[in-house]
């Protein structure tokens, strides 16, 4: 007896199957990486044990993880927010830099009580991010210039600007660190080891954003405009105004990430302060599939991967191995998402 296996495409994936497909994708990526590590002579089991032990086995590990988690939540959210109106903010990296830059400027040059300075730094960070996305936003809104290119290219400008001020005019002339600014006196207070209040703030921002998109008239209009602008026009929704607002919001959130990194984690501005968080935010957003709440989970996964990378480096592996693993996870997740739309049926002939 012969039987025919057939693929049947379903209009929408069952949530359980979709989740299982994603879990399978992550596990498959880890197994792949393990096999490659084994081939190159390492013992993947020992390494995995090391990673898990270093990440979750001690308070220090967990704290490191949390510090990576904070900026990833916010940059991931920035990209997700821009997606709601149908745009790709590839410039979260640059907006992160500008948020850090503006917050540092306030911290270094504005005198006043630390609490007040901290509040001013918060606003400076958000506004810095918004300013950095302003030109791409207006170009997109009024001249239909693709924001993918403009936001991306501004990243390099921002990185060079920060490198210049932190090694030039703003560099620490007293201390030993010649490639960074002096330590800022205003700091986001810590609540658990070295983990600062930026974490609950980031989570709150995610929840507030998700609530606004799901439970406000404005959110409805934005979702409609992002999904089909001509339908939104037909319904009389001011698409351009919403586009500008949402893109600025996206830039502001990325700027906030930069501010928290400066005021909570690093305490001084230096070249490479973004640590690629802006680009990793794109991956976080892709994994979250347009869901603001989903950003929290995908940012946690990304933080773990990043942290594993750091640990593996101490074990003699290069960063490339970790980058390859991240790429694999993304790639396999995409395949898993697509496959979860299919059902395999068997026909007897």
């Amino acid at each position, binding site marked *: 007896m012969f039987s025919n296996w057939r693929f049947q495409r379903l209009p929408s994936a069952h949530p359980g199957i979709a989740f299982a497909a994603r879990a399978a994708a992550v596990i498959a990526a880890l197994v792949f990486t393990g096999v490659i590590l084994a081939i190159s002579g390492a013992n993947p089991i020992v390494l995995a044990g090391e990673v898990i032990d270093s990440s979750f086995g001690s308070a220090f590990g967990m704290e490191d993880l949390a510090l990576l988690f904070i900026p990833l939540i916010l940059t991931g959210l920035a990209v997700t927010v821009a997606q709601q109106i149908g745009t790709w903010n590839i410039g979260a990296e640059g907006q992160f830099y500008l948020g850090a830059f503006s917050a540092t400027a306030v911290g270094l040059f504005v005198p006043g009580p630390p609490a007040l300075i901290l509040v001013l730094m918060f606003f400076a960070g958000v506004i810095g991010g918004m300013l950095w996305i302003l030109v791409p936003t207006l170009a997109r809104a009024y001249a239909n210039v693709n924001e993918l290119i403009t936001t991306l290219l501004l990243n390099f400008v921002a990185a060079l600007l920060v490198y210049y001020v932190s090694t030039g005019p703003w560099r620490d002339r007293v201390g030993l660190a010649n490639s960074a600014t002096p330590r800022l006196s205003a700091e986001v207070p810590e609540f658990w080891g070295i983990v600062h209040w930026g974490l609950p703030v980031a989570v709150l921002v995610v929840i507030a954003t998700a609530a606004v998109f799901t*439970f406000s008239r404005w959110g409805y209009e934005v979702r409609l405009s992002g999904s089909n602008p001509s339908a939104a026009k037909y319904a009389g929704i001011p698409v351009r105004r919403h586009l500008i607002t949402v893109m600025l919001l996206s830039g502001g959130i990325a700027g906030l990430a930069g501010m928290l990194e400066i005021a909570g984690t690093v305490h001084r501005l230096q070249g490479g302060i973004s640590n690629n968080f802006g680009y990793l935010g794109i991956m976080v957003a892709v994994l979250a599939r347009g869901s603001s709440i989903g950003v929290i989970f995908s940012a946690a996964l990304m933080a773990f991967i990043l942290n594993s990378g750091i640990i593996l480096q101490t074990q003699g592996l290069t960063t490339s191995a970790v980058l390859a693993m991240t790429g694999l996870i993304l790639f396999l997740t995409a395949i898993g998402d697509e496959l979860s739309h299919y059902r395999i049926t068997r026909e007897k002939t």
Partner: protein
Amino acid sequence: MNEAAPHFTPPAGTPPIVQLKGIAKYFPGVIANQDVDLEVYPGEIHALLGENGAGKSTLMNILTGIYQADAGEIIIDGYKREFASPQQAIAAGIGMVHQHFKLVQAFTVAENIHLGWNETPRRASASKLERRTADLAKRFNLQVRPGARISDLSTGEQQRVEILRVLARQARVLILDEPTAVLTPAEARELFSALRNFVAEGNAVFFISHKLDEVLEISDRITILRGGRKIATEKASDCNPRMLAKLMVGRDIVLDDMRARPQGAAPVSREPVLNLKNVTAKGDDGSPALHDINLSVHAGEIVGIAGVAGNGQRELSQVLTGVRPVTSGQVIVDGKPMGGRNAAAYAAGGIGHIPEDRLHSGLAPALSITINAVMREYMKPPITSAGVYNPAAATTLSKEIAEAANVAIPDYGMPIRNLSGGNQQRLVARREMRIANKVLVAAYPSRGLDVGAINTMLRYIVELRDAGAGIVLISEELEELLNLSDRIAVLYEGRIMGKLDNQNIDIDEIGLLMGGRTQVPETREVA
């Protein structure tokens, strides 16, 4: 008829250059062509005349190898041929200039002429290609600028490039699909003289059009298609516009009069609910699309808009619903000028809109059924109060709309693109009917639907009319317009050619107006 070029007369016994025998083509649920016999002789300009969907383009696509016929034969110069692709057709000397040009915008004229042509020299500099193009242009007497980029050319010039590209490949039969639709009158005259020169050398032209005057002017013989079948082939010299119009719209119309009102239906109001006064509007490309439109719609009546698609229907429906701004003139709703207000204000004022391309402008296909269903009422309680959007209330409304539309929906959170076209259209119609307490503008409401869904659609419209709304029904189906409308206005090139009362209406007259003729007996004109 041909003053410029001498007429070519083939020697006696010459076979037709193209002969079609019993051509049939079926698409799922549609007969596109059936039993079409046609012959064209060297030296002839042969017009194909018919309404939208009469099967003109399908027939020519079969001749050029884009489609393969399900039955019948293609005979070229007396030999039976089969074309599996347009390349094979052009090798046999048959080339087509499509309504939408197939040119590479960023390339020069010379590059476009030489693209995908086996006679293009393997190694050729730009200047050599341009020289070759200039020679070709001279040979075929078509003026083009070989070095210019396509994107810098006017539509008339682009069309000349298309024609030159086909002629350069030694085409002997040139097919033109609505060639004058994009041309100015002066450009059209140039085209006509080029066509006359072309056939004077023993070639032939198929000329697809719905414009009666130009068909009579340019062609030697005219074939009229209707519903995929050939109705007649006549010598142009034996034809007049009235007779062509009658043949074109023909009448095996099934009149199923839906104009009668049941008891208790709302009467036609004395004052119009919607009034267009001298309205002019631009199309998407900035060129004028509507000229000096005057149209009034009363409560409780259906005003039909007839005309061949692309004559300003889309722009008219958008002006009526506030989606497209007017450049001059006034839109008056219930006595109040709407000047400058947007689509949301029109909707709030009681104007519903079933758009012609529901998937592109009436719905967001990737979003949920609920989000799509509440598109007209999301800003009002119970869905939004004090800026807070209540998803549960939205789903409740969406269920209500789906029930009224009689659409069974397993999951209101699934993307609306998963529904069939008929179900989508029913949901859109019900959504719009809920807000259309003054006017409903329905653009091609039955397009793409099967017979059952069409009936439902038309029943909805009648139901709304009886409830006291004014309806603007834009359609390319004359049956539909005749069965429903109290009055019919005919659009042609952005103008209203005439308004007719639908009382013992003369169908030929509509055909004449659709074809751009204005000589209508004064007695029938309704102000």
